[in-house]
């Protein structure tokens, strides 16, 4: 988990604008703000703008999300910033993801009217993945999560691949950017939009990549080995970002 949070944080450059949720995304944004990106602007969908987070919020609308912030506003305004093209990154999770980065956080089952398991639904996820420039997903990787077909497309990735995302009317040049798992970091093929290995975590193998996904993940000739968190990153993460181990203590 520490590795996943650290990699996620390294993807947030100084001066970027990111919308985050609670948990891993928030920890990553805090770590980035306390290391290489002091000028990272963090937004929360409920209306918090640019807080200097003192500790991890439990709700994306609680008081922490406006602590020493620059503005508190409405959800509509946050989403309008996204729709207007201001926001670089969003960070999402989900119960299932497919090869094109489509996410399911609505239900398991085949009958919408009688789901086997009902999850919360889109919340702001569909909006953020539709409207922000780049979508990052942080998730554990296994066959139950990395599925051939998600039971419900809650949140758009590259939809059916190729140009289908822009054909659906979603903003051009937006879409899934990276998937960070406990095995590796993935991107997407520039044309087919299939998920593709970018870097393998130390100690993990290509078999781990393949055996923990129902669909075929593209393996390019060249891929990297993920750089481990530095002592400095770990120190900040453990002492300042998440001293109670709420996120990094999770398996």
């Amino acid at each position, binding site marked *: 988990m520490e590795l996943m949070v650290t990699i996620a944080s390294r993807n947030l450059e100084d001066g970027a604008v990111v919308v985050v949720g*609670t*948990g891993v995304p928030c920890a990553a944004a805090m770590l980035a703000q306390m290391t290489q990106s002091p000028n990272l602007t963090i937004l929360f*969908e*409920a*209306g*918090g703008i640019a807080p200097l987070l*003192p*500790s991890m919020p*439990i*709700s*994306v*609308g*609680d*008081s922490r*999300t*406006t602590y020493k912030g620059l503005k*508190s*506003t*409405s*959800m*509509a305004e946050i*989403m309008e910033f*996204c*729709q207007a093209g201001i926001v670089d990154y969003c960070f999402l999770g989900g119960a299932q993801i497919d090869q094109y980065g*489509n996410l399911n956080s*609505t239900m398991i089952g085949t009958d*919408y*009217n*009688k*789901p*086997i*398991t*009902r*999850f*919360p*639904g*889109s*919340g*702001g*996820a*569909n*909006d953020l993945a*539709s*409207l922000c420039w780049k979508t990052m997903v942080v998730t554990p990787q296994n066959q139950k999560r990395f599925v051939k077909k998600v039971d*419900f*497309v*809650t*949140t*758009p990735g590259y*939809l059916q691949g190729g140009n*289908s*995302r*822009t*054909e*659906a*009317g*979603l*903003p051009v040049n937006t879409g899934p950017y990276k998937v960070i798992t406990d095995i590796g970091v993935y991107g997407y093929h520039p044309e087919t939009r299939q998920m593709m290995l970018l870097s393998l975590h130390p100690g993990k193998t290509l078999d781990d990549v393949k055996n923990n996904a129902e669909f075929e993940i593209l393996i390019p000739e060249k891929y990297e080995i993920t750089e481990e968190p530095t002592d400095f990153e770990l120190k900040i993460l453990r002492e300042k970002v998440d001293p109670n181990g*709420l996120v990094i203590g999770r398996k």
Partner: protein
Amino acid sequence: MSTKNLQTGQGELFMSPNVEDARAFFHQKKKLMTNKLTSVKEAVERYIHNGDYLAIGGFGGVRIPTSLLHEVIRQQKKNLGFSGHVATHDCQILSAGECFNRCDAAYIVGLEARGLSTNARRLFESGTIQVTEWSNAALSWRFKAAAMGVPFLPCRSMLGTDTFKYSAAKEIECPFTGQKLLAVPALFPDVAFIHVHRADIYGNCQIDGILVADDDIAKASKHVIITTEKIIDHEEIRREPGKTIIPFWCVDAVIEVPFGSYPGNMPGEYYSDEEHLAEWLKKEKNPEEFAAFIRKNILETKDFYEYLQLNGGIQKIQKLHQTEHLL
């Protein structure tokens, strides 16, 4: 970008986006600045009818109108509709009373980082609740469209997904650019419950911190019931008019309910009671224990203060006040 074959979501549209009807209703509503102070019991008796469609202010566990939600259960209101616009603890309360049979769902059955509500899930998995799917922005913009007095707003969310397929939105072609857009229909709730920091007796309201969608919900709803941490003098409103988020004519009833967002967070006042919210989630795992828990905390309590007292009273609030201010 093809705009042929424009699609329509197959979900049920629970509330009419007819703006002429809404205008006529808002026109006949009295605009006199009268004293609107009442009690939680009276407000729910008077303004909530079985079958009404409810919008709940705040953000699920932040600035929520707990006392009104409990009273809806006590009075056993049934067959309500509601907008699940990040409905977390509020959805959990209404699910405990099995008060609703339809829901516009953007976020339901979960309590964010705290986990999922077993009881709300059971209800939504039972097939007895009619659900129409939306995203958070879509619901925000549906309230905004109603607040603006237009039948829909165009937006660029939800396109291409099952969230759209099971919504009641429609794809449209932009008359200027030819682009494919999503039209989300105005949502005019029958009643809104909103908890605020300060209000005068006429219903002019001030809110600190995030608004979520409450400025628009207040303008979109036919009736608005306000609970407030504190009643302030009318002169205080007039001294700083820039602070007024909800003007009096939107509001039908005002009730002073200090600590009224408990066990939710009230920005600047007290943090959420995580121990108590964890207890809700735990009790829900055993239906009998949960029924007893609801009897003890809601059905057999006279009012919100008895509930607060049962769960730590003023000492608990003091502690949550310290947590809020990082003491």
